[in-house]
């Protein structure tokens, strides 16, 4: 982190220009009365929301048509900051709620925006079934490798050997390869980016929103206060630099090769983009025959 006070300098720093402002160009989709948000300095969730706002804008779909459903956790708080019809549901159960909302309102774009613990641990069963059914929703999974809100416990996405409060001697378990899991269950769109890849993350979110069927975007994001700190990795700033130096873009990679180890290479890209009838397509086809 920059710390201009401690650098040795020969000349005093040039005074910079600061033009104070009150509103941000992307505020139109945010509940401004609730900003600044609760996420830590150098947390990546805000950046994911930033890209999401741009994706909504670029989709050209009217905002009224979106509904956002989240679960519990740091990422779960996204529903409270985005100015769309939003539902902050129970831990792990965003996907069933979104399924019900989508089925009764197929005209809406239902987005599930939640964290790795919420979607893959307690919500894992719902994740695989929604993918299997090809429910036409978009799931954005912010993966910070840890349970942030509750203080930094182990998640099924925590890399092997990493330290968390419930794995103080190092994680004995191996994490899920989430894109592989979701792709194997039948998702029609699977991509992974990191919070650093702002434009590509935005494009992936846009494609996922526009895609018919179950689309899944995993965003690896820094957790400063817990994951980085407990593993002596610095702050989120340092994790972003790590993503910069260690990410490899491989579109169309075999999802079985997307495992993430502790501070190892992260493969990002768009891995699955196929066409398949959705759950409602099949119901409508069946009911037409009836």
């Amino acid at each position, binding site marked *: 982190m920059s710390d201009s006070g401690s650098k040795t300098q020969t000349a005093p720093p040039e005074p910079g220009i600061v033009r104070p402002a009150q509103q941000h160009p992307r505020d139109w989709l945010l509940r401004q009365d609730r900003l600044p948000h609760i996420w830590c300095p150098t947390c990546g969730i805000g950046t994911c929301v930033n890209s999401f706002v741009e994706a909504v804008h670029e989709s050209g779909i009217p905002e009224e*048509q979106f509904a956002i459903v989240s679960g519990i956790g740091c990422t779960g708080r996204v529903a*409270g900051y985005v100015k769309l019809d*939003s539902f902050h*549901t*129970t831990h792990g*159960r965003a996907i069933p*709620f979104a*399924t*019900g909302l989508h089925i*009764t309102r197929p005209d809406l774009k239902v987005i599930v925006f939640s964290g790795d613990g919420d979607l893959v641990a307690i919500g894992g069963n719902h994740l695989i079934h929604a993918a299997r059914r090809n429910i036409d929703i978009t799931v954005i999974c912010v993966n910070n490798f840890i349970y942030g809100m509750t203080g930094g416990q182990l998640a099924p996405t925590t890399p092997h050997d990493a330290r968390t409060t419930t794995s103080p001697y190092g994680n004995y378990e191996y994490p899920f390869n989430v894109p592989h899991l979701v792709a194997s269950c039948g998702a029609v769109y699977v991509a992974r980016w990191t919070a650093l890849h702002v434009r590509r993350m935005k494009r992936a979110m846009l494609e996922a929103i526009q895609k018919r069927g179950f689309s899944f975007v995993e965003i690896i994001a820094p957790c400063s206060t817990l994951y980085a700190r407990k593993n002596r990795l610095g702050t989120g700033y340092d994790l972003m630099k790590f993503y910069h130096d260690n990410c490899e873009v491989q579109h169309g990679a075999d999802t079985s090769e997307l495992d993430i180890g502790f501070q190892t290479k992260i493969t990002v890209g768009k891995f699955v983009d196929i066409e398949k009838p959705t759950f409602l397509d099949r119901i409508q086809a069946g009911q037409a025959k009836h």
Partner: protein
Amino acid sequence: MSKARGALLTGEHFMNGDVAVAEGALAAGCTFFAGYPITPATEVSERMAERMPDVGGIFIQMEDEIASMGAILGGSWGGQKSMTATSGPGFSLMMENLGLGLMTETPCVLVNVQRGGPSTGLPTLVGQQDMMQARWGSHGDYEIIALAPNSPQECFDLAIDAFNLSETYRLPVLMMMDEVVGHMTERVSIPGPEKIKLAPRRLTDRPPSEYKPYETGQDLVPSMVEVGKGYRIHITGLTHDERGYPAVTAPVQQRMVPRLVEKIRHNAPQIVRYEEDGIAGADVVVISYGITSRVALMAVEQARERGLKIGHLRLIVVWPFPEARIRELASQIKGFVVPEINLGQMVREVERCAAGQARTLHVANAGGSVHDPADILKSIEEVLR
């Protein structure tokens, strides 16, 4: 079922309680059902799977009961009347999301066809052992509305009432059936549409700039919106203020949660429902619900044949409990006899309200079969001794 039928199968039918409750839901306008198979409620799901295409609705078998409850909450916010059905083990799983439905004030109906418990218990045999769980099963403070039909006909009729109550008071309403009522086949008369009164969803007439999702008037029930109409609502299970935004503080909790509870307590006189017979001048009143009420009738008749003055009070709406009536009766009679297929649940409410003014005797039955009327008769005589 090759010919498409409408939602309302007006006419005389011979159907079991599970099928009747599904038909009642369809008559009430239910167009979304998410369920999971569990004996003895599976037939509700099966009937719904068969009939949903007839009403242009959707049936989905979810991966578990937790998902079923979550899906119907989403379906309700999607603007459609939504229902799920389960039994004891599934009821336990649904508790967390039931709490979400109560906290977010989401109208929907949850059917529990009770069986013997605890745990896996007696999947195919009767119990009435989830009555207290219906009231207290989810964590935190809340009030709930629960109905107990005692015949397939009532399964049909009360299903419509359940949807009406859920829309009027904005909460999940429970249909506490039992395995015997669910599986017994009896005559069900389905009326014409002119006889069916449906309560509409209470949508706001305010524009988005003025609307607050949890602002209430005299009756303490907030008005709802349709998603996708520009209201940009935020609905959360966290303690929230009138805007719906999380407000995780003691003052908001102390304002908001009592309002949720008062919403039912304040309106209890309109919600409470029971059926009385022979109460005037009675020495003993038998209080029962569900299938036990039909068995109790036999015991009451036998007692009356012996010249005893016995009244019968059948709970139709079990929660909120008719406290005022029980208190009133307690001062007039010698005692209450409460047969139920459990080891003491609703009897505790009776006892609480009787407050020592009248004896309260429980006729226990651990489950698996209905009472022997002789046991109820014995308790009636015991109270009079």
